């Protein structure tokens, strides 16, 4: 990082020419020409991480057509790009790559931060452990285009602002590489509040006097009541539960219990198929099973022809402070019913058998659970972190996760 000032032979040429009469004029007009060329030929890098990239593409579509500005020559390699539009959230893992990209662009290069995420982290400012709060903490940004995402026109306006900026720079106002912000992550919301409060406290004394005087002058002053806006009133509607197909809960439970008598129902200690029926058709059977039988039950559910369960929706986990629950959600595409099952895992030794040999799709889901909860799956072919960097400290979805370096706590 930290690209200092740019230098070029232009400076030396200009120094020589300046001494001659009319030399300044000449250099100036060359400078003007170069600035004009640069401003009108901004080739963007094909870069986009999230939603803003779609609006960036819209800006390139026929309707908005940024080709009118000569911006349509989008390059896939940074070597030929002049402009990088930071479209979308920048997370820690991408941060180093973004700096690489920026450094690999030849000078002069320009950066537009598009949308809230790239400006300040936007919706991911508070309580996120992986988002970089603003692109300008990594690379110098020239123009900020606010919005979430900004309209294509707003981006075009941002490009016009950038053109304006480029046109004004020349040798005498040399191309400046902007500064990388190095401020710590602050909770701007609380900061503003605090500042305001101290400011108000200082005024307290003089205000007290003013208020007393006001009260004396207007003894029967009655403030007007604020008028509430009349909002449209809506009637409550009865909910029509959607039609469910496939096995009913009682018959499903009965089938499972036949093979696995130990199976329990989550938070429903006394289970009989009859009581399950009372839970209603929308209730999805939520089985609980010990770690020993957990893979067997999954295998049973998959292989039982009658039940017809064939699709793994997901494997996930819930942190219940004292233990974890690993959750498996299954679906029958043929019949339409769903089964959830959970297996408690202790916090001290978070390890459980894998089911990736039963459902191939579980492989990534289990990696995700490992990454975010730190639950290991024994027998898993590729137990690595999936989203976060390998040296990320801790497991973020645990309830006790705290990382003051990364996370700005929500003030309210």
């Amino acid at each position, binding site marked *: *990082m930290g*690209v*200092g000032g*740019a*230098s*070029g*032979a*232009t400076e030396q*040429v200009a120094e020589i020419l300046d001494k001659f009469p009319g030399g300044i004029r000449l250099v100036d007009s060359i400078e003007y020409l170069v600035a004009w060329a640069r401003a009108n030929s901004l080739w963007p890098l094909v870069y986009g991480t999230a939603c803003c990239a779609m609006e960036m593409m819209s800006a390139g579509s026929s309707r908005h057509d940024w080709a009118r500005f000569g911006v349509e020559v989008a390059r896939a*390699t*940074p*070597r030929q790009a002049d402009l990088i539009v930071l479209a979308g959230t920048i997370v820690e893992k991408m941060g180093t*790559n*973004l*700096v*690489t*990209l920026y*450094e*690999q662009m*030849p*000078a*002069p290069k320009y950066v537009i931060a598009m949308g809230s995420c790239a400006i300040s982290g936007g919706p991911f400012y508070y309580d996120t452990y992986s988002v970089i709060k603003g692109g300008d903490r990594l690379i110098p940004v020239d123009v900020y285009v606010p919005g979430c995402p900004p309209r294509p026109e707003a981006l075009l306006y941002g490009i016009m602002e950038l053109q304006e900026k480029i046109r004004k720079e020349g040798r005498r106002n040399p*191309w400046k*590489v902007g500064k990388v912000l190095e401020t710590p992550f602050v909770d701007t919301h609380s900061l503003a509040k605090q500042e305001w409060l101290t400011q108000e406290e200082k005024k307290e004394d003089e205000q007290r006097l003013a208020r007393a005087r006001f009260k004396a002058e207007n003894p029967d002053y009655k403030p007007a009541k604020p008028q509430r806006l009349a909002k449209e009133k809506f009637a409550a509607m009865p909910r029509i539960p959607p039609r469910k197909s496939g096995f009913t809960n009682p018959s499903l439970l009965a089938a499972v219990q036949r093979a696995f008598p130990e199976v329990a129902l989550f938070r429903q200690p006394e289970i009989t198929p009859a009581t399950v029926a009372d839970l209603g058709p929308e209730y999805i059977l939520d089985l609980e099973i010990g770690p020993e039988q957990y893979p067997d039950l999954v295998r049973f559910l998959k292989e039982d022809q009658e039940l017809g369960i064939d699709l793994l929706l997901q494997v996930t986990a819930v942190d219940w402070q004292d233990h974890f629950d690993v959750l498996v959600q299954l679906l029958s595409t043929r019949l339409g019913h769903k089964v959830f099952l959970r297996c408690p895992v202790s916090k001290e030794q978070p390890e459980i058998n894998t089911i990736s040999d039963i459902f191939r799709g579980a492989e990534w889901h289990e990696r995700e659970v490992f990454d975010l909860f730190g639950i290991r799956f024994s027998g898993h072919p590729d137990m690595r972190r999936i989203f976060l960097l390998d040296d990320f400290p801790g497991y973020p979805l645990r309830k006790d996760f705290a990382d003051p370096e990364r996370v700005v706590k929500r003030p309210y």
Partner: protein
Amino acid sequence: MESYIMIGFSVFLGALFVGGAIICSKILAFHSPEGQRKVQPYECSENPIGDARIRFKVSFYIFALLFLLFDIESLFLFPCMKIFKSVVTGQHGSISPVVLFSELFVFVFILFAGLIYAWRKGVLTWE
């Protein structure tokens, strides 16, 4: 021969033009300070894995050989083609156009047979 002098001259001018542009750029272009990853080869913004000077698939060479074969063979046709018209119009009285065509046909036929052979051998299928 004279025309080749002109061609040579224009090559000189062309090189001058191209070289001029490059020298002009050398003098006037920006030079930003060396960055950490600035000169690292671009591999989708990641660190390149291994060397870029790699061995390459043999199929490329097979096609290069085929090219040599067919291109040279077709260039052999060139003199024949050049006089074909004059033979037909009777300027080369001694050669009958039919004979010439037959000779040509045999040549091209052999070429074609070679192609069919390569085809059947599966050489022409890029794997």
